[in-house]
């Protein structure tokens, strides 16, 4: 079982709604990530937080707003989304951000299925 917990598992929202996705890990990891995955496609990186600071934004539209309140929590605030934003949103964590190597690999949560209507 994954030690990265995501809520909610399913979310349906209108294009004018404001909602948030939440992620929590208790492995002491200091790097946390948001990935987006469309059906039958691989996950794509959106944001990386390292030691609670945003270090990578992969040119994600501003209608997605990440937040890292502390080292265990990561939120993704959603506002004015489009139907094409419907996807599985995956949170992940690793020991730290510095170098993907054995022992510092990235572990994923089960994801939040988002449908924008």
């Amino acid at each position, binding site marked *: 079982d994954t030690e990265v917990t995501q809520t909610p598992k399913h979310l349906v929202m209108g294009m004018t709604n404001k909602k948030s996705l939440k992620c929590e890990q208790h492995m002491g990891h200091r790097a946390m990530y948001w990935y987006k995955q469309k059906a*039958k496609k691989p996950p794509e990186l959106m944001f*990386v937080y390292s030691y609670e600071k945003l270090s990578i934004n992969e040119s994600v539209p501003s209608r997605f707003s990440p937040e890292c309140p502390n080292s265990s929590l990561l939120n993704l605030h959603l506002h004015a989304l489009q139907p094409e934003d419907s996807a599985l949103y995956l949170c992940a964590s690793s020991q730290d951000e510095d170098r993907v190597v054995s022992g510092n690999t990235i572990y994923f949560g089960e994801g939040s299925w988002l449908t924008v209507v």
Partner: protein
Amino acid sequence: GESVGLHLPTLSVQEGDNSIINCAYSNSASDYFIWYKQESGKGPQFIIDIRSNMDKRQGQRVTVLLNKTVKHLSLQIAATQPGDSAVYFCAEANSGGYNKLIFGAGTRLAVHP
């Protein structure tokens, strides 16, 4: 590992047979590789990893082979079981930079009794 196409390639195997899932990566600077298993409705699950200074690494029922010359990675699953049915992704990373994984397109493994 560029993602391409709308249809996942599928590997169909009989229960008990060995499975080999292949992956071609594109970045010669990548020096760390991971295989993930993703079951329907779930997040990717770490299976095994390998660094570029190795050609082979074995886990429990799984083996990863790396051929840097042709930029090819494979995952071998011994005695495939119905529970192995899933989509398998290879992912590559360059340890010289930030913690960024680039995922391959994925292969669906279907295990038949």
